[in-house]
């Protein structure tokens, strides 16, 4: 009995200590200063600091190829320091699924919080994809966009190889463009289709008189379904597909699409600590306060747009929902399409099935 009492007492003291002792926390951004996720980290950490006045929050920029080394090192080493928090983005989610060099596992971590957002595709008003090929900027994080295009162009009930051939016939996948260069090429008409996150869509597409909404991927729900975006109603990929072909999208290719789009959009910006990190409660508490603080939200929205937060255990549930999409067939099909249609050297990572 006394052992139990002592244990409870020790745990209470530890919890109290972790809640009150001032710490220096390091947020690890996988990019160099000024890049997208670093900018997001800058602003979120600045606002978070206001809700953790006794602690010191600092940022470590840890750039590397395809933003992977920081996340790998967090997995192998940095996460065991309880003051380290890693910030991941949607591209890390896609790399996790299909790149051998990505050696991290979201399942080994606990979520502090994540932003769940949508990606919206646009096209030139004058473009007629029945008569001309789609000209779209290639990037490894755009696998879901390519798969949606393949299904919209080619219809239901096709094999992966058939979708691949059809995609190549209908789409010019233009390599070597950076995001800003792609936007300019779209305005000049060299590209006739593009995609953006909601904030960038408002900024770059809605003001372009020659552009129009094409489709969006929908918003991931806790039960694993995707629903229409109220900001762009009626343009969810699934709705457009059903309107065009009279059947709902389904089958192996669709499952592969659902897997990769969920990992990209559902984890577009996420903060993680090691599993059972004693500081997590403090961080989650501060993030909750920040997400309820209108001034903080206004500051964040001004820079990165308005997205919904999933915080603490809800973030873990969100992650678990995503992990539930992983199965051998979907993973295999996604990798095959990436390799054959997009020339991305993707790898089937059977370890993810464990």
């Amino acid at each position, binding site marked *: 009995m006394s052992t139990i009492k002592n244990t409870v007492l020790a745990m209470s003291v530890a919890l109290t200590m972790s809640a009150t002792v001032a710490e220096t926390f390091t947020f690890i951004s996988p990019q160099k200063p*000024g890049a997208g996720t670093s*900018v997001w980290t800058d602003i979120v950490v600045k606002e978070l600091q206001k809700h953790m006045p006794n602690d010191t929050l600092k940022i470590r920029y840890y750039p*590397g*190829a395809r933003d992977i080394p920081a996340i790998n090192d967090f997995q192998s080493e940095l996460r065991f320091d309880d003051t380290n928090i890693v910030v991941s983005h949607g591209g890390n989610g896609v790399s996790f699924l299909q790149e051998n060099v990505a050696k991290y596992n979201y399942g080994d971590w606990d979520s502090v919080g994540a932003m769940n957002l949508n990606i919206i595709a646009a096209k030139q008003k004058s473009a007629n994809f029945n008569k001309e090929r789609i000209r779209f900027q290639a990037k490894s994080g755009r696998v879901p966009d390519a798969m949606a295009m393949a299904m919209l162009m080619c219809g239901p009930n096709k094999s992966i190889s058939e979708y691949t051939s059809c995609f190549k016939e209908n789409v*010019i996948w233009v*390599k*070597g463009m950076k995001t800003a*260069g792609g936007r300019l090429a779209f305005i000049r008409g*060299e590209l006739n289709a593009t995609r953006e996150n909601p904030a960038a869509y408002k900024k770059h597409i809605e003001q372009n008189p020659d552009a129009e909404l094409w489709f969006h991927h929908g918003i991931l729900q806790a039960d694993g379904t995707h629903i229409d975006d109220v900001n762009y109603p009626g343009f969810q990929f699934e709705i457009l597909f059903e309107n065009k072909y009279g059947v709902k999208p389904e089958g192996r290719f669709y499952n592969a699409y659902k897997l990769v789009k969920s990992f990209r959009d559902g984890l577009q910006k996420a903060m993680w600590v090691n599993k059972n990190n004693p500081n997590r409660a403090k961080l989650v508490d501060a993030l909750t306060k920040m997400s309820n603080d209108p001034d903080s939200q206004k500051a964040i929205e001004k820079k990165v747009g308005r997205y919904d937060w999933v915080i603490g255990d809800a973030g873990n549930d969100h992650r678990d929902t995503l992990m539930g999409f992983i199965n051998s067939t979907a993973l295999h099909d996604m990798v095959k399409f990436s390799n054959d249609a997009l020339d991305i050297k993707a790898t089937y990572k059977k370890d993810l099935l464990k």
Partner: protein
Amino acid sequence: MDILSLTALVAGTLYGLLIGIIPGAGATTGLIFLFSIIGLFPDPYLAVIFIMAVVAASTTGDTYSGVLLGIPGANSAAATMVDGFPLALKGKATYAISAAVTTSTINGLFWGSLTFFLLPYYTKLILIFGVPELWAFTMLALVTVTFVSNSTYWFRGIVALLAGLFIGLIGIDPATALDRFTFSWDYLGNGVQILPMVAGLFAIPEMIAGLRQKSCTSKIEVDSWQQTVWGMKAVWRNKWLAFRGGFIGAFIGILPGLGGAMADWMAYGAAVASDPNPKVAFGKGNIKGVIGPEGANNAQKATSMIPTVLFGIPGAPFAAIVLALFSYLDFELGTLDLIADTKFFDSMIIGFLAATALVGVLCLLLTKYIAAIARLPYKYYFPFLIAFIVLASVQYTGGWEDYAILLIASLIGLLAKKYKFSRPALLFGFILAERIEALSLQMHDLYAFDRLLDRPIFIGLILTVLGVLLWGLTRKSTLEYS
């Protein structure tokens, strides 16, 4: 202008003047230092004012070391030195400095106004320039920097360019998204970073050369107000020469890949050519040999910003650092976002024009005190320069890898300087390699050959590239005396 903008302007001007005065330093080195402090600015637009003030002030300030010590502060003052230093030895240092500063200031204000006030209007070009035009324009930058800026040693220029292209291609292959030339070193996955490359290629070799250079040890008097007035009157008498120098500098600045000493030497050559029977021989203290090149350097700095801002293609080596600094501040050059950002252009205008005027006034009024700084032995500030350069160059990861890259780049820079392999060609190859490759891929994907023939600007640029190539290969350089 609010108090913070004014503070950024004055601080940038004084810093630029100081870095310009120091022999072997100059705009490029001064801008590299900024990477260690640029994150401290509370507002990125203040940083833009500061950066442009540094560019303007350092260009004017480098006259001092050339005239007083016989050492150019940067390449841009080397032509001024040819006649400025002999004038100083004759007891006319203030006369030479006054003429140089006046010419530099007037041309800086004139060409700076033409550039920066009209820059938002030039931006329509980026909607006209598609992938093929950008490809051809980038090729023009590579050809001019290799064959024109260093035509005496053009074969070494090609070698340097190829080396730069190779280093620039280290990283990720855009076609396959796989690592390339990284030698299994993860650090190189994002490519070689620009800062240690520029610091190693330019700043460190110049600073080491500065240690070795022997300056004039005799003290030259510089406190004559009468000479200041004479200098200004000399500019008025040679106003067309000053204007021609400015025009040459402005033209060279617009061309991507050129800049630096080339405009100055061309302007000097024009001054020599315009006076076949001079009263005082050129090279012996002819004031026209000061006014001609000084007209070119500030004008060239201003117009170099046109290709830099519009297309993200640096107009000169210093502009490559400006490009990287703006990128650090989240200003993406060559994009529509930036072009719609009037505050950005206002900050550039304030920074460049106000600093040009301010540094001109300071130099004319305080020549005596500024000269005292120029005379401070190099060995006193060399350790600080090296420390700041290293600090600014190792900010990518802060780990030993950054130091290793800086060391390697410094060795390359020292060897290239010693054996006259064009460092600008190496730098431009490095900076533009990824762009050329990406544009080549895009052109292949988007344009059939017959569609290219329908694009007159593309055809014009390709003909210009071929013309420059032919000119560079066949014409003996008029700049050999540089």
